[in-house]
């Protein structure tokens, strides 16, 4: 077995191994997302899932030879980040919105001279 054959065989083996590992990673990540228990935990799980998916795409790209799949990976990087930011944003603001909304409505109802809480 010359170097070339070894390289090719090793690479193929590596890819298979990588796919196995990534599949395991999928499984574990999904478990965390489903288990929670808190929202940040789940978001974290989704974040890891994004990373695992990026890796998966890279491996598939290597396996199939369609290296243009890297673009999909880049896109996933971007939205993965966006998702995490957005979730963080809403973890931060949850509770706040409801709190304020109730006050705002009560104020306007009072201005309009209506008793709050009633609906037509």
């Amino acid at each position, binding site marked *: 077995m010359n170097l070339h054959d070894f390289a090719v065989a090793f690479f193929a083996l590596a890819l298979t191994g990588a796919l196995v590992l990534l599949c395991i990673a999928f499984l574990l990540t999904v478990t965390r*997302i489903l288990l929670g228990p808190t929202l940040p935990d789940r978001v974290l799980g989704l974040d890891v899932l994004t990373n695992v998916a990026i890796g998966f795409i890279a491996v598939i790209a290597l396996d199939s030879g369609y290296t243009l799949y890297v673009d999909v990976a880049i896109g996933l990087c971007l939205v993965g980040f966006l998702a995490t930011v957005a979730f963080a944003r809403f973890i931060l603001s*949850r509770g706040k919105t409801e709190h304020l909304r109730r006050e705002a409505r009560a104020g306007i109802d009072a201005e309009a001279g209506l008793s709050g809480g009633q609906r*037509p």
Partner: protein
Amino acid sequence: MTGIEATNGYIALALPFLAAALAPLLTRVLGQHAAWPLAIAPAAAFFILFGAVPGVSAGDVFLFGFDWIPSFDIRFSFRLDGLSTVFGLLITGIGTLIVLYSGGYLAGHKDQGRFFSFIFLFMGSMLGLVLADDLMTLFVYWELTSITSFLLIGFDHHREAARRGAIQALVITGGGGLALLAGFIVIRELTGLASMTEVLAAGDALRDSALYVPILILVLCGAFTKSAQMPFHVWLPNAMEAPTPVSAYLHSATMVKAGIYLLLRFHPALGDTALWTTILPAFGAVTLVVGALLALRATDIKITLAYTTVASLGLLVMLIGVGTETAIIAAVLYLIAHSLFKGGLFMVAGSVDHGAHTREIEKLGGLGRAMPITFAAAMLCALSMGGVTPFVGFLAKEEIYHALEYADPYYVALMIAAIVGNALMFAAAFIVALKPFVGRMPETIHHPHEGSLTIWIGPLILGVAGLVGALFYATYHQLFTMPMASAAVGAPVEIGIGWVPHLNLAFALSMATVVLGIVIYLLSARLRAGIAGFLAAVGWGPDKGFDQAMRGLIRAAVRITRLLQPGHLDQYMAVTIAVIIAALFGPLIYTGGWPAIPAFPRLHFYEWAVFALLLAGILPVVLATNRLTAILSLGIQGFAVALIFMLLGAPDLSFTQFMVETLSVVILALAMTRLKLSVADHRPLRDKVQAGVLAIAAGSGFGLFLLSIAQRPFDRTLSDFFERYSYAIAHGRNIVNVILVDFRGVDTMGEIAVVMVTGLAVLALIRIRVGPKGVRYPDPLEKTP
């Protein structure tokens, strides 16, 4: 018919509509005097039609018309023969008097112009109805009379009774009209006869048709409702809510005769069968007797007249049903006579109302001195109605008894009905025409007075006409009754009956009728109480039944509608999806389009893993009670779908799916976190089972059908084309993108329109806020000045 005559025909038909258009304007300018110029229109139409009388009395038939809707094979065509011409003369002649009468009767009424318009519209419709030849033309006019009478009955729309009367009339006559339409269409489509002329020329075609019975029943439904046969008669007394000119015109002389017209018209084609001679006399006789009894029961003289009209219509139907030549002649004689005296009496009733401000028979009396002309007119009409010679009513009654004088149980029964009915009507005639004018004047009546010329001229002319017709009976028969009867019989007939009584059975019966009538007249107060008591004991009648039917209809409608539209989205959705599933499985089972059993799929392990990921995403979405778990699992299945796309050679799809799925989850979580939702989100077991059944059915059905389609050979022509020309012509290497922006760019154009509108719609949703009870919250970005 020559061109000029056809033109005249069209003019006669159009004149009332023209007058209808002008009436509001003229009334505004001339006030009540507008009646005079307006009366020119029907008068002119009368004279135009009268011009056709020599011809039709000689047996000619004038036809004119044009193709109206060739695509539907419908003509706008008319037929002037004895029947239609005489009807037309009655309509326009009495119409002229009614217009004059209305001028006085409604003088100063602020809606007089509108009233004239409606009356003229009705007149035009009625005229068209009787002259029409094409069945569809006839029907259009038929329904127009229903519509216009709806407006006329509801003229005093501020009273609920008027509105009720109008609706009742529309419902009953309109409903009958639809049956008539069905009958006409059946005639047209199954026998190919499109016009009256064709129907009449076809001889026994209709009678021999397999569909004779349905046709007859449908036509009779139309005729009986319009001509107020029991039990459809209820609308007619209630139609008395209309101003009196309307009652005089529509509900005595014209509209109610439309059904009679139809029966006379169809008699040659549909009559003389066992069914005809059974149904018509049965309905007619019952209507006659019951109507006459009810007339006696009424205390309002207008209502009395209305019921006598019902009775008269019954009599006419009965005669037409008997269908012998004599019977038809009798019907024709009675029809014309009835139009004259009943129109006159209604106008008299109106004048009495006008003069004494009441129509209650108990509160009327002694008006003769104050209203002599009206009294005279009333007596003329009443004598005719009572069948006293020398009035046209006498001729009719003689002929009726002639027609029924056979020693046969059938005829005897009808004869008894005729005698009883006539006697009752005799009494009713004098109750209306005599009682208010004689005796002591009750103190409730103040300053009774004769109306203006326009008020009394109408009844007077009609009363005198009844006399003149009988006196010059030869001419009368020559011009009017013989042509009409000939057309109705379907063969030339001779009528010779005159005002001079001959001693025969008919005369004897006539006398008996008069005597009986006088007795009833004298006992009328007691009889009235008796009938009233009887009716009160029964406690129910078709009129009450109408209300019950309407309410029942509405209640049933409400019940059905609430059942079908319960207001719950989940039920709507479940039914919708169930229907969709049925739409899938129905034809699938019917045609047996199931897939073949597939071989076990050979996939790489990581492909299996991706599908497992998909399943791992779907299951918690469905099963998780925690909403956030569900949402994030949604992200998982989205990723899985994106990976599937990538594995199967769709990078663009994968790219987009990843982005869209992530964004979906993000905004979903965003909204979720803001909604203060209950923690537990349980579905009841019943719901779960129902949803589960639907879900399994939908999933399996669509999946199996997809598989069966995927197992078919595939035509890849389109994609080959795109591959071949994507770079060469469209200069793009990414074939999917070239499809999006070039090959199928219009799809994309629509797609971005959707995206843009979504943006705007979301903006509108978020920015426009309304508080409880419709208070609009200020737009946060709206600049306050």
